[in-house]
């Protein structure tokens, strides 16, 4: 394996693919790879053909449960596996005007879960206003995906745990491993220590404590070219280690598979793992996971208001196949009548026990 290529990548990874003008910043190039020889030559089946075998094509939405809003791609971290290609150099930030359009939808949606993501959503200058307004809509489960380090990155974010508590926000945070080495390798030096401090800050206001209504869940995604292990076993190991080493409590661990797009795709290709990884995803294909794959109950909204079947399709710029494509024209009934756009990256959500922003699905 090209260790020197990987160390070059690590140096470069302080910037997004976009800022580096890397060819994979171009979504068409990513789609060419996902539709490339490995599938075109018949070595592996197209996702469409795979799900057709079990009568699951075309993939159609079920009841809408989750409205996921990406409020911008700016982030304080530049994680190697990031499917958003987020980073400090990304300037795509949701405006207040688009947020107002989103609020209109949040007030009227049938979805029971609102899920704010990014980037680091907290870096959007209107984030707090948006959370305050959205919380008034009384949605059952209000999630903010926080990368943890943001809480410790600057004084102005130190009170986020209190702010989340005030608005009864369900915090979902990334934590690649319970050891320093593996965490920092994926997410950058110092990320582990800051994340631990942030988790302790969240615990201190009541988040993650057993029986507490202040929900704190962690997201685990593998730090390399392998699939996540059993979610329950991983949760057990994380709980034991974080409690013993740092006296940290949290509720659930979501094991999420890395999808072969954006920076993770770049890593797979540079480390010569792409082919093996795609084989591993296809071999682990589970039709039961297709049944509950998250695009069947989610709508994803981008920073500029476009609608997608999921956050991954958003990053590949595959807009929903519907007359309604923008939040300003939002119509849940029309959207629910669409066919979901799929490609080979979808194997990432149907491998093994399946994968979604809420963890396994099968």
């Amino acid at each position, binding site marked *: 394996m090209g260790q020197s290529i990987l160390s070059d990548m690590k140096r470069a990874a302080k910037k997004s693919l976009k800022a580096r003008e890397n060819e994979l910043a171009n979504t068409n190039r990513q789609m060419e790879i996902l539709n490339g020889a490995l599938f075109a030559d018949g070595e592996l089946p197209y996702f469409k053909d795979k799900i057709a075998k079990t009568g699951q094509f075309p993939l159609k939405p079920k009841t809408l449960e989750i409205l996921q809003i990406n409020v911008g791609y700016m982030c304080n971290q530049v994680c190697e596996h990031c499917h958003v290609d987020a980073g400090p150099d990304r300037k795509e930030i949701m405006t207040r005007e688009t947020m107002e359009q989103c609020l209109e939808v949040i007030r009227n949606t049938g979805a029971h879960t609102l899920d704010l993501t990014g980037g680091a959503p907290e870096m959007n200058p209107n984030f707090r206003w948006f959370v305050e307004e959205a919380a008034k809509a009384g949605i059952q489960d209000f999630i903010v995906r926080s990368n943890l380090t943001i809480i410790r990155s600057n004084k102005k974010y130190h009170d986020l745990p209190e702010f989340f508590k005030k608005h009864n926000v369900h915090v979902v945070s990334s934590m690649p491993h319970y*050891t320093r*080495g593996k965490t920092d390798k994926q997410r950058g030096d110092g990320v582990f220590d800051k994340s631990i401090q942030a988790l302790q800050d969240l615990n201190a206001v009541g988040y993650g404590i057993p029986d507490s209504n202040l929900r704190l869940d962690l997201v685990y995604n593998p730090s*390399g070219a392998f*699939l996540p*292990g059993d979610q329950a076993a*991983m949760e057990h*190991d994380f709980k034991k280690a974080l409690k013993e080493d740092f006296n940290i409590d949290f509720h659930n661990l979501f094991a999420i598979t890395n999808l072969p797009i954006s920076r993770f795709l770049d890593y797979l290709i540079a480390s010569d793992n792409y082919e093996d990884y795609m084989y591993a995803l296809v071999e682990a294909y589970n039709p039961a996971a297709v049944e509950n794959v998250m695009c069947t109950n989610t709508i994803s909204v981008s920073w500029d208001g476009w609608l997608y079947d999921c956050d991954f399709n958003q990053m590949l710029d595959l807009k929903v196949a519907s007359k309604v494509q923008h939040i300003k024209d939002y119509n849940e009934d029309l959207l629910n009548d669409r066919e979901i756009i799929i490609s080979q990256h979808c194997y990432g959500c149907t491998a093994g026990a399946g994968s979604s922003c809420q963890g396994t699905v099968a």
Partner: protein
Amino acid sequence: MANSYYDPADLRKFGSITEWSEELGNKFFDYYGKVFEEGALSAREKSLIALAVAHVVKCPYCIDAYTKDGLQRGITKEEMMEAVHAGAAIESGATLVHGVQMMNKYNKLSM
């Protein structure tokens, strides 16, 4: 034909051994799958045992497979290396304990 005895891509084809002997192949894979389920030992513990044995029997396919399996289970590299040492210690011990046979024979033949 490949010009090497080992091709990493062959690991993916392991299941194809059933094509030439379906009954025995299936029995093996059923047994194999059962062995690695959670039991009195956890699947995690068994993964580490498998990794150690993979090194002792010097099976490159098994080393690839159980390194990846360990990563998937969140097993750390320190744990993996300790498992390899456990295997290596037994293997070197197995050699060295034969030193007693050598000593016995030496003493028997010597005046």
